């Protein structure tokens, strides 16, 4: 894991330097903030799924929960409910999805893969059903603030009276990302629940025989994944001021990828928020830089695939040489 983290950080630095040199507009304030904005949603999902993966589980329902929570927020807002209330309700719905995942995994002892695969279908189905598979548009202006607003935006009046943006400000999603990363990092590293999550993932039987409530611990991990998927959905839909029931298809795999690139082991027991953030930034920066270079989306897919394999392979090779 240590090696993988080192490889990941180096990869991030190398990427940054290479793109800065080869792509003229990459290293500008505007673009760095764009990378941050694009990475934020990946980071939310990645942090959530990191919790689940550390317990030895997996969450395949993230993409669908994104769609469901976005749709719930959209429909409620359009029905005239205050935007912040509808956001809150959609987070609760997403949390409910996580709760159900957790209960299925613990009470019914379903394999996490199966439980969340089922939830993936169910949440998507509900999102499509309640919207008739149509995008929810015509949303109030306030719905877009979360995804499009920024803090410290500086504008000046130019000579001819137009407003000129001298500093675009820090997008709200980036601020939320920093807060979420700090909070969930704290919970994982410094809070009892984090300790229990590592213990359960590291050796479930030992944790149980030490008196740790294994079920409760796992349910909390799925709750975290659910609620962060909900947050992702709100932020995504807010950016386009439209709720798309088709959004987020396959996003759970991006989330898992960022966790794994950052050194989280699918066997459970290890992983960090810092690592996942690095993983999210690697994917985000790759997408952004390759886009600016004019590399096709298909080639991007190939490159990201190679990065995932290389990151984990580096760790495996290192471990083998230790033996």
């Amino acid at each position, binding site marked *: 894991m240590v090696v993988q983290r080192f490889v990941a950080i180096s990869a991030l630095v190398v990427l940054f330097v290479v793109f800065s040199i080869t792509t003229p507009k990459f290293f500008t304030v505007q673009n760095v903030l764009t990378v941050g904005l694009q990475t934020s949603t990946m980071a939310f999902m990645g942090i959530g799924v990191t919790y689940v993966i550390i317990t030895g589980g997996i969450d395949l329902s993230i993409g669908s929960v994104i769609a469901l929570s976005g749709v719930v927020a959209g429909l409620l807002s359009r029905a005239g409910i205050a935007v912040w209330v509808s956001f809150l309700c959609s987070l609760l719905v997403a949390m409910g999805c996580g709760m159900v995942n957790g209960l299925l995994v613990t009470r019914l002892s379903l394999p996490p893969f199966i439980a969340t695969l089922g939830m993936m279908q169910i949440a998507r189905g509900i999102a499509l059903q309640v919207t008739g598979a149509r995008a929810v548009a015509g949303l109030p202006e306030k719905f877009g603030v979360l995804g499009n607003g920024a803090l410290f935006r500086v504008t000046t009046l130019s000579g001819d009276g137009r407003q000129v943006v001298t500093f675009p400000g820090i997008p709200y999603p980036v601020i939320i990302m920093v807060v979420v990363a700090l909070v969930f990092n704290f919970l994982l590293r*410094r*809070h009892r629940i984090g*300790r229990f999550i590592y213990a359960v993932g590291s050796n479930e039987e030992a944790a*149980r*025989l030490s*008196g740790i409530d294994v079920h409760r611990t796992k349910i909390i991990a799925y709750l975290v994944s659910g609620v962060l998927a909900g947050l992702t959905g709100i932020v995504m839909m807010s950016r386009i001021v439209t709720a798309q029931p088709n959004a987020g298809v396959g996003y759970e795999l991006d989330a898992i990828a960022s966790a794994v690139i950052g050194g989280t082991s699918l066997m459970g*027991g*290890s992983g960090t928020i810092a690592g996942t953030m690095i993983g999210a930034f690697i994917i985000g920066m790759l997408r952004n830089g390759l886009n600016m270079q004019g590399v096709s989306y298909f080639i991007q897919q190939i490159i990201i695939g190679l990065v995932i394999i290389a990151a984990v392979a580096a760790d495996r090779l290192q471990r083998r040489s230790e033996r």
Partner: protein
Amino acid sequence: MDEELLRVENVTKKFPGVLALDRVHFELRRGEVHALVGENGAGKSTLMKILSGVYRPDEGTLYYKGKPVVFHNAQEAQRAGISIIYQELNLMPHLTVAQNIFIGREPLRFGGYIDDRQMNRQARELLARLHVDIDPTTPVYALPLSKRQMVEIAKALSFRSEVLIMDEPTSALTESEIEELFKVIHQLKQQGVGIIYISHRLEELKHIADRVTVLRDGKYIGTYNYGDVTLEYLVSKMVGRTLEHKFPPRTSSPTGRKIFEVKHLTRAGVLHDISFELYEGEILGIAGLMGAGRTELARAIFGADPKDGGEMYLHGRKLEIHSPVDAIRAGIGYLPEDRKLAGLAVEMLLCENITMANVEEISSRMGVIFPLKERKVAEHYVRELDIRTPSVYQVVKNLSGGNQQKVVVAKWLFRKAKVLIFDEPTRGIDVGAKYAIHRLMDQLAGQGIGVIMISSELPELLGMTDRILVLHEGRLVGVLRTRETTQEEILNYAAGLVSALS
């Protein structure tokens, strides 16, 4: 029938730090059942693995049908006609009986298709040789354990095996299944197969064994015609040694104040009406053969397995224990048999393992962990228990077995446990560390903590305990005063030859 099939002479096998076999002899004739007996760690498994090609001896020669041979792996030995049936059978449950027997050697039709009809016919023939009634097209998962064993035997015969090694074949069988197995063994004998039979259950040897070889501490003790010796004689040969000063002096002694009491503890099919008491200052041993229910007893007390009846009292207070959480709250700590599987999170840090059962103590009411407090706690126990580690932030898997065990002890001390159940506390630990663990147990008993020790090593029980409970097939058959008993007596109880109770 006196033709020699297999013979080893002066075979020696070393593992890092252990001399597993020291110039051992063994010989097997055609058509005989040759039993191999000895205590745990006597070298039976190692010898078996050498005979079946899994290990290669460091010294000594293996003769098969009169010629010296070297097997490089188990497949080579199997092709030559030496098959081994392990205690945990090696069958694929979702394949049929015939598919299991011929796995990798399926009869083929032209074009490379598997000839199912031919395969099933051959399987039927093999099973008929054993006079057992099994349909070769049944999936193995649908068979009871005893029948699966027959499938393993049929598989061995399909290799035209002339030597069959059976490791504890009856450990999981019922009485009638054992009878069935013995019939098959008689069949095989008549067909000229030589059988090496390893068992803890000495009393069952009388039905089948022709000769017995005893190993002790990796050394060859002797080979006897079964008819010429008594069971008691064999037991004395297995045990042999007298106690050396391998154990620390006991500083604590029972005060007569009762700490803990178990009454009529029962778990259907596993534990039958077990009652005992534990006194302050006492180390109480639990002896028994494999499968006697020792670990099951510990797990039932600790709430890790369900109970069907019974009561427990700690300092006179009745306990309601339905889960490990209840047991821990009540003040009972369990140090499992397999540290790495159940006692420790080996990928986590030493300090995290020590605090694992009592994280509340090092965190705020809101759940925030105080790293400094955790470090101090861990450092305290590292000093107290003399855990050898560069720092409390060491990953546990990098510690030696003895130090790992101390970490588990520290975990329960930090939880302020009042009763500690040690399950095979010194298994896989080197001699020096054993001494340290034993001294620690004595100290704990002296501090008023109730200490229960489950062990397969009789010298350990005799060296450390005050009283010994002996279990046999889930029943408490004897409560012995350690000072007045002997290994022979314990073994006689454990083998079910005598029973003082029930």
